[in-house]
């Protein structure tokens, strides 16, 4: 089963977390990114994520594999939403299990940082003023 997935509908984090837990786990770190009601000082009404699916899945899987190789963790999973999202909806989830917390935190942080910088997913925000636009950060 892939450790990185794109989801075009809301997904359940409890069952993802349950997949990571076994008797060797001492520390479990997770991160969730939620759709905020503002960005760069502008009021956001909602957004859409678009992906280049084949490459996003391959690059996301590569990132999770890197984390498993770099850090002393037991397992890790990441899911990223695509499609239309409302304020407050879950956009991305990362979960990491490890014997100890240092490695769990480090791997969790690595995965979200790399996903945000490398995986071909783009955010399209709709603003209160009625305009909208793609985010292509410098």
């Amino acid at each position, binding site marked *: 089963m892939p450790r990185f997935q794109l989801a075009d509908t809301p997904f359940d984090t409890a069952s993802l977390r349950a997949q990571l837990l076994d008797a060797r786990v001492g520390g479990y770190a997770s991160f969730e990114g939620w759709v905020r009601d503002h960005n760069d000082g502008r009021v956001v009404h909602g957004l859409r994520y678009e992906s*280049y699916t084949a490459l996003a899945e391959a690059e996301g899987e590569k990132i999770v594999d890197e984390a498993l190789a770099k850090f002393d963790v037991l397992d890790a999973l990441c899911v990223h939403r695509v499609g239309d999202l409302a304020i407050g909806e879950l956009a*991305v989830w990362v979960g990491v299990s490890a014997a100890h917390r240092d490695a769990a935190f480090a791997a969790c942080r690595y995965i979200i940082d790399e*996903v945000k910088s490398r995986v071909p997913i783009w*955010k*399209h925000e709709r603003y209160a003023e009625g305009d909208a636009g*793609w985010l*292509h*950060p410098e």
Partner: protein
Amino acid sequence: MTVRVTVLYFASLRDTAGMASESFDTAAPDLRVLYLELRARYGFELPVDRLRVAVDGAFARWDDAPRDGSEIAFIPPVSGG
């Protein structure tokens, strides 16, 4: 020599091009020149150094030559998460 390629457009590139993909014959010697030609045609704002390029679902190099039958994607700066 020309090869037939399919180019995928994402995010602002798709909005500017007005389509998600197109197939055409190109004589561009490498992917950089191919992008520059498309940029001139459609008026893309993003310069080459802010993009990455992928071929058939894997990241590629700008000086790779377009391969016949390949699917080429120009990847604008990503904003997931």
